[in-house]
């Protein structure tokens, strides 16, 4: 979801001369990760991410260290995949898992690096949608 093209495009291109600025996208601000937080991306294999969630919910060999709830976060393009993972988990659980989704807007920072000495570096804020799905166990 974070991998985007390098060249300034769209709105930015219209306003700023690419000769004078280079666009660099900064990492989204994130909160410290708990063990049961999973950030979904588009680069890792879908199956691997699904298995990771399943493993967290199932715990070890005798069910120790299993989480009663996990949070799946997806940003931008990865929203689809986050939903997909959550639904797959639910479908494979024979009714023991429930999902609850929250959406939010994440502020992303684009850095504009000057190509000439006389310009100050600029930052712009762009909004992107995000989803946070809580997958939790219910008593059957």
């Amino acid at each position: 979801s974070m991998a985007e093209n390098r060249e300034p495009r769209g709105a930015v291109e219209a306003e700023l001369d690419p000769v004078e600025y280079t666009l660099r996208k900064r990492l989204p601000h994130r909160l410290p990760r708990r063990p049961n937080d999973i950030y979904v991306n588009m680069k890792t294999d879908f199956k691997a991410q699904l298995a990771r969630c399943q493993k967290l919910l199932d715990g070890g060999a005798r069910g120790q260290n299993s989480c009663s709830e996990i949070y799946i976060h997806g940003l931008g393009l990865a929203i689809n995949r986050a939903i997909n993972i959550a639904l797959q988990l639910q479908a494979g659980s024979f009714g023991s898992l429930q999902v609850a989704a929250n959406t939010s807007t994440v502020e992303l920072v684009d850095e504009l690096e000057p190509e000439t000495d006389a310009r100050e570096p600029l930052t712009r804020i762009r909004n992107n949608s995000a989803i946070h799905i809580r997958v939790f166990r219910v008593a059957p």
Partner: protein
Amino acid sequence: MSNAKERKHAKKMRNQPTNVTLSSGFVADRGTKYHNGGGRHFHQAQKQEPFPGTSRQRQTKMTHHSPVDPDVKEQSSSKIMFKKKGGWKAGPEGMSQEIPKYITASTFAQARAAEISAMLKAVTQKSSNSLVFQTLPRHMRRRAMSHNVKRLPRRLREIAQKEAEKAVHQKKEHSKNKCHKARRCHKNRVLEFNRRQKKNIWLETHIWHAKRFHMVKKWGYCLGERPTVKSHRACYRAMTNRCLLQDLSYYCCLELKGKEEEILKALSPMCSIDAGLTFAAVHCLSGKCQGSVLLYRANRYPREMLGPVTFIWKSERTPSHTSESRQLWIWLHPMLKQDILEELKAACQCVEPIKPTICTPGPLLTTSEEKSQTELPDEKIGKKRKRKDDGENAKPVKKVIGDGTRDPHQPSSWISAATGIIISDLTMEMNRLRLIGPLSHSILTEALKAASVQTVREGEDTEKTPHHWWIETCKNPDSVSLHHRQEAIFELLGGITSPAEIPSGTILGLTVGDPRINLPPKRSKVLPNPEKCQDNEKVRQLLLEGVPVDCAHSFIWNQAICKNVTENKISDQDLNRRRSELLVPGSQLVLGPQESKIPILLIQQPGKVTGDDRRGWGSGWDILFPKGWGMAFWIPFIYRGARVGGLKESVMHSQYKRSPDIPGDFPDCPAGVVFAEEQAKNLLEKYKRRPPAKRPNYVKLGTLAPFCCPWEQLAQEWESRVQAQEEPSVASSPSGEDSDSRRDKLPCAPTPENTDLWSDEGGTSLSSCSEPREAMDTECPARVGTEWVACQDATGSLLCVLRSRKWLKQLSTWCGPSSRDKRAARRASGSGEPAPTRAACLPLLERFPRALVWVSLALLRKGSPEPHSMICVPTEEDFLRLRQDQLYCGPQESKHSDPFKSEIRKQKERKKVEKRQNKQAPTEREGLAGGPPAAGHQALTLGLWSGPLPGVTSHCSRVLLGFVTQGDFSMAVGGGEALGFVSLTGLLDMLSTQPAAERGLVLLRAPASPQYRFARIAVEV
């Protein structure tokens, strides 16, 4: 009996009592003689192995010689033989027909006496490398035999005694005849440490490192290369998820002081806006950000590169009287220092050295004086030492802080009368630690606490207290409010999970308290505090706008304050004593006004800025603080869970960031050339240490330069290659010289001449491409060999690395989608980035005829590249097979013939003959050894190309494009990744011929492997 068994037996029996073995030997000898039935006697050449097995063996060996020897009839002959060979000769017993008729008693007795004495000598002397007790059979060995002679059989004691004495003599004598306890005593240790860091500079964390790292002497420093524990992967994890700590105090700092315009005017010829921002970039000039710049010799851009540096301007506290006197720090790698310092001095016209007593008074001089005072008596005899020690107790030995190797009379700063600029060398005047990874924020905020503001009652005299500078500062309300603002921003950092979220190069100044005071009792791991991480407006502002300019101010820029801070540090001993005197053990130590206040400077280091993936990987903070405080900051960081890396980890860091490593990846700067030479020397030594059969034969593998990359030859050959291709087309078209008309003609549809050339070059099939290539093969070596030598002398400086940002951006779009992201690939192929046409490349090629480009390579399938791997151009057939077979790994290089092998064999034979001749006539040896043939072939090594290299580009079946300088399996990507340089001309040539779908695919081949593997090339800006 097998040979080995015999030898074992012989060894076992060597020191056995003579009477037993001799008699049995004689019996056996007789027996064999009878068995053989030969009426011939035999000689035994050996001295002391009269055992059945060996003697029989010897006998068979000697049969060649025995017929030559005349039959023995006289004892005199036996005597002669004995003298000559040093052995004894068995008499002709048992053979009736050869029994002499008479013997002379005296000569007979004499001969026997000599034999007996020889035997006795042989028995008492031993002739092997092993110790006496080692030759005893196992059942006769006893515990502690090696140091207790009495445990040995009596007959061997004498020999063992001698051996033991010898061993004692061989034992290394201690340099000082001090006992272990005396050597461990603190004062003596400090003296010893001071002595040892006279040659190579020690960092303040040296002792800590020396206990845990493999140390190397590099660039005049003793540096930790890599941890002794197995930690390659752990260090990668630390950089990615936690925190990796490095001591970068060996980096050099040069200070420029003077008027802003003057400094900028002097420095502007040394850098170019074409290669990135310069010293004059507004955000750097204000002191808000750290900048980085590539330095060249004045007005020589793009050639004669000096090296990459980072710089910080001191922020102006009061912008009203600007540009009056500014301070600029240039931080650089120690290997680049000499060149850059000279060039800076020339650029600023700083020629007059300032007397070192003015600029570096105090600590350095006094320590060296004291050192010499205290070291002198040490060299005298031990008798007087004790008294001397008592005398010295009053004046404790001072540890060397900073540069211990510097001559105190050597100038370290220079002034210019014309421009008023002062250049000072601040090397080792400050410590620089680097924290890499997302946890560095937590570690910093946890370990460092802002200094408490100190208020003074009216009556107190502030001048006498050790930290009066801080008291003075606290009197000024502006300074206090600035300090509070800095503290607030520093505390905010704890709520930011990654340093990559902060604007790159941000500078934050701060004054902190003594970090040793709140040291946790045990080593622990800090975790980010979620409470601090609440989204608030302040954090948002910090992320967007960075640290305000005035908060970049730090007292570290003031030399006098730094000196004060260094001198007034409470020693660890004092601190621990106070801690032990606490009423409640383990409670917080409060030093109050006596606590040191240390000015520090925090600089954000951007991680990976180029490319699309893993943005911000490896970002972190550098922390600068005055010298003397190294360990006081080091240990608290480690106690908060930072893992320490060495030089190898910094190479890994730069490799994963895909940034060039300093100085190895700067082939156009003098330091890079020196580095490459050293590396080649080490690799060659390592290669020669292996036996020829156990090392790759690079000649047969077609690897011409396995240890160093012949950049200049590569660039030059590509230039002539492309010229050779162009010549016919220019000749055939009359208007060919006019570049404008060609630009109209050439672009999308190549002219007929061109298509012919390109297809020949690319090779549509093996049969069609083999012919021109062979022609080139035969023609290139001779031509290039001569040209190459000439070019090295005259125009060697033509080589440069393309660093123009404009052209690099253009190149990166030409190279096609740089990431393996499918969307990007689709978009690129859909929109169809145009292939670089000849016309478009022409201005670039004209400006940089022999240039290299820094590229990154990602392997398509398996394989992990190595340094010095070759980057080659794939042929049409390779693409065809790749299209047909998704799992196709790549072509293989066929075996080359080794033209040097016969030469080496001949040389060996010659040597053998020589040896034989020498044996026969030792007097002639001098004449033979000095002969020219022997000397001329000394350089040959089996498996390496000797002499001038033939054409490197066309030596193998695939045309060579460049070399890899760093390459490994990347744990971040999960595949092989490499970084290296390719010839610009070659790259453009390759891109223009490749079809759009496969544009940017190259082949990689490790020096010791015939297998080519596919990789995607990318130019990242």
